[in-house]
């Protein structure tokens, strides 16, 4: 079989064709997961029965594989009358699934903020909502940049699961080329390196953000 560099280069444009789909899914899901996760965490903190429900939801997500979730949303919901497009299911699935993880990240990020911060805001008469927006969230961002970046990489790496929903993302494209040509090494290597490169770009970006946040307000 061997490795044919020319062939590998030839597959590159074909695989990159699916890059926009991969990026669309990854970026939208990152935003969705962060938004849902943050709200889940705020709800959980509010406590009460609702907090318990949220907590169980988060646990449930964390105890089950993403693939099964995608199957359920895509193939089972329509039996109950909800038929979403593959792309919607993909983005909704990844967002919901990782929101459980990000909620935990937010929890750790908020817990790391000294209790005195919220108290100081309270003592100044600042309302709960404003406290979250102006005091807690900005500080949390610095605490969570690194773990959140890790989950963004995870979301990127989870986009190939959308192949089961027939969403044409990068890895699926690579497998298509492979099954057309029966050359597996080249397209998979190209796809693998592209994923690795994207993942590293995200990690570096997060590192940069972290450094910036750290210098803008040295504690």
């Amino acid at each position, binding site marked *: 079989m061997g490795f044919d560099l020319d062939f590998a280069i030839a597959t590159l444009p074909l695989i990159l064709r699916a890059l926009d789909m991969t990026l669309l899914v990854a970026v939208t899901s990152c935003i969705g997961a962060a938004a849902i996760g943050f709200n889940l965490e705020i709800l959980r903190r509010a406590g009460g029965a609702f907090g318990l429900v949220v907590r169980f939801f988060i646990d449930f997500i964390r105890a089950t594989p993403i693939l099964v979730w995608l199957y359920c949303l895509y193939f089972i919901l329509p039996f109950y009358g909800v038929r979403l497009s593959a792309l919607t299911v993909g983005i909704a699935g990844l967002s919901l699934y990782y929101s459980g993880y990000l909620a935990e990240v937010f929890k750790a990020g908020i817990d790391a903020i000294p209790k005195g911060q919220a108290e100081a805001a309270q003592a100044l008469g600042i309302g709960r909502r404003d406290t979250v927006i102006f005091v807690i969230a900005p500080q949390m961002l610095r605490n969570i940049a690194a773990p959140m970046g890790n989950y963004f990489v995870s979301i990127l790496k989870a986009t190939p699961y959308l192949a*089961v929903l027939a969403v044409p993302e990068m890895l699926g494209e690579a*497998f298509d080329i492979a099954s057309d040509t*029966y050359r597996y090494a080249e397209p998979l290597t190209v796809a693998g390196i592209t994923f690795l490169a994207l993942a590293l770009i995200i990690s570096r970006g997060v590192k940069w953000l972290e450094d910036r946040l750290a210098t803008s307000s040295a504690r």
Partner: protein
Amino acid sequence: EPTKERILREGKIVIGVHNRAPWGYRDEATGQATGWHPDLLKAAFSELGVEEIDIRVTEFGALIPGLLAGRFDAVGSGLSITPERCQQVAFGAPDLKERDAALVLPGNPKNIHGYKDILENNDVIMGAGRGSVVVRKALAEGIPSERMLLFPDIQSNVAALRTGRVDAVLLSLPTVLGLMRDGAVPDVEPADPFVTTDEQATFTSVAFRQDDEDLKALYNERFMALKEDGTVARIMAKYGFGEEEMVSEGITTERLCSATKDEAAQ
């Protein structure tokens, strides 16, 4: 040690299947390898003292890589002979003529009876297995890829059909027969009829590694003998294959490997 010698010495051949009736699958009840190709191979090798057929179940797309990687000695899972595949593996003699068929919802609401119906009705979304030959035929017929959803396996295709995500699932006729035979698939039926031309038919065979020419020769020799003594016909009957599926004289692996290549050259 060459593969052939090893198989004869150990009395065991390892084949790759993708767990699909009627091609090659693990019988849920007995755990044994069954299916069209496993049965053929069993019959072909048993007189040589090879009693054991060991199966490795894998995804369809991993069948050829697995063979090339030496994960198994042969693929016995309904692979069609195509020129591209011929460049990678050595096919045995063609053993079954394979037409295409379509699964549709009960009553065939979109009235699909051939590739043309799919091509001409812009509302129709077709489903098929990623990397299967029907996809290439559909593309050759001019069906745009935007109207195809390609799923990694057949159960996803069936689920997509039942949930209205696709209007027809294109499969090979034997596969459809296999699906229908035990009545396991609810709420769907084969499009009757689904018209295909003879040129669109493909032929399946057992695939070996190109290094294992001697093993392939041995298998071919045994296959001819089985054809003579009626064993092949008996196994065909077991899976519900008839005249339609018979491979006519003059169709050889060599021709199938080059024929469409000429077409491609035209």
